[in-house]
């Protein structure tokens, strides 16, 4: 498998705090990578660096042989990296289908020629397809702020898919969900994998990732402390120590 994303020795500090102390990892094309670690380890910070929300103070991030660590988020999205958020961020007063359409309009926002064109039938079709993929097509005209958390998480995935990504970063997609909703998310992630997407999932409960991912990378206090299969990582003493005081690792 070829490498699609490479993070090289990325450092990021906020004021006096070093959130990332030199993190490196690689993601192979079509791989599902788990990124775990206790709260505050720097997982979301790393996602934000990859997605262009933060720019690393040192180090590089390379996507398909192109450096992206200095690009703004909308450019990173256009290149093919999509992400979801730990706390869902829907466009609250817009309908579900409009939420997805916003992201579909990606290519139209560049330049000025297409800005005044209206979304066409093809765009609506594509949006509907994406909603079908996550099981929200029946609610397409509902205002998104009326949705349940599980539905909102699925909407975020649909919106992320709308930018036509090769990589999708999922930030704690299971957070706040009840057991029966978890299964739906797992199914969705497996479907994304089948479609050939490369995925990084941040999750601080390893249990949920066990069946989904082939490889796990562990972050603690801004440093990578372990790497391997879910089983290997679960029994790694350094990992167990890092989680001490938190919810049980498995």
């Amino acid at each position, binding site marked *: 498998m070829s490498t699609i994303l490479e993070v090289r020795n990325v450092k990021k500090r906020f004021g006096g705090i070093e959130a990332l102390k030199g993190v490196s990892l690689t993601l192979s094309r079509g791989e599902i990578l788990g990124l775990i670690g206790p709260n505050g380890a720097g997982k979301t910070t790393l996602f934000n660096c990859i997605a262009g929300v933060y720019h690393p103070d040192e180090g590089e991030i390379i996507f398909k042989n192109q450096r992206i660590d200095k690009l703004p988020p*909308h450019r990173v999205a256009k290149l093919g990296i999509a992400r979801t958020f730990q706390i869902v961020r829907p466009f*609250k007063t*817009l309908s579900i289908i409009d939420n997805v359409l916003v992201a579909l309009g*990606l*290519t139209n*926002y560049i330049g000025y020629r297409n*800005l*005044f064109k209206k979304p066409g039938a093809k765009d609506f079709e594509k949006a509907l397809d994406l909603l079908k993929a996550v099981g929200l097509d029946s609610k397409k005209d509902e205002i998104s702020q009326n949705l349940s958390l599980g539905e909102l998480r699925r909407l975020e995935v649909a*919106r992320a898919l709308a930018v036509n990504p090769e990589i999708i970063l999922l930030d704690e997609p299971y957070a706040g969900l009840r057991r029966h909703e978890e299964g739906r998310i797992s199914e969705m992630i497996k479907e994304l994998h089948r479609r050939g997407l490369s995925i990084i999932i941040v999750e601080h409960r390893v249990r949920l990732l066990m069946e989904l991912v082939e490889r796990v990378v562990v972050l603690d206090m801004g440093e990578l402390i372990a790497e391997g299969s879910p089983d290997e990582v679960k029994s790694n003493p350094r990992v167990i120590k890092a989680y001490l005081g938190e919810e049980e690792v498995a």
Partner: protein
Amino acid sequence: MNYYLTILIYIGINSILALSLNIIVGYAGQISLGHAAFYGIGAYSSALIATKLGVSFWVSLPLAIIITAVVGAILGLPSLRVSEDFLAITTIGINFVVQAVFKYVKFFGGALGVSGIPFPSIGGHRFSLAAFALMTAIFTVISAVVAHLINTSWIGLGLKAVREDELAASSSGVNVYKFKVLAFVLGSALAGLAGSLYAHFMMFITADDFGFPLSIAILSMIVIGGIGTVRGAFLGALLLTIMPELFRPLSDYRMLVYAILLILFMRFLPEGLIGDESIVWKKIRGKA
């Protein structure tokens, strides 16, 4: 008759103003408390170009629109750096500064303002009041069409995404900075149109016409009507233009009534009369 035509012209100009502010505040969600500044820039540009260069309304109008749009882009830049509350204060500041420039800088006529602004004419024939009213109506319709076009096109989606959540918008491919500036450019361009119409209608303008109270009035129009909607902008403009006339008998109490109405609306009907979320609107459409 002339009285009614004049009122209609005012309603038209105010509608264009309301629609223009709606792009910035309603669609893009940027707080702008100084919109009268753009109105004034449009008016003064048009007035000065016509009087100092001796050209007709038909030349000064498009130039005024362009100038206002350019200034709008520049004055919209602070919205990229500061957010919400700071933007509110900044736009108030912009209003006062622009007004002060008009008032104290000789080039703009100072305290005397600009007079002798030519009424529109075609082929040497001065427009009648009715003709001006018709022209205003046409421009109003054009503005509504532009606003509707923005609302339903890709740029509208982008602006609304910026309004709802800048981070999510950015991750979905929306260049937040570009769209914020675009909102100001489009909003101020339309305000410039309104300003030019005003200048050539009144034939005399001073800095006092474009102060903070007017900015609040324009804002009130769209909030009372229903923010983010074209129909709301029209209703708000209609109400706020007619109100001073209706309340003339109250004379001394007019401002107090206006202020109390503002408070009551914000307290009890902040979605506006016919905004998307308004109870009134929902009842009209049989949904509530």
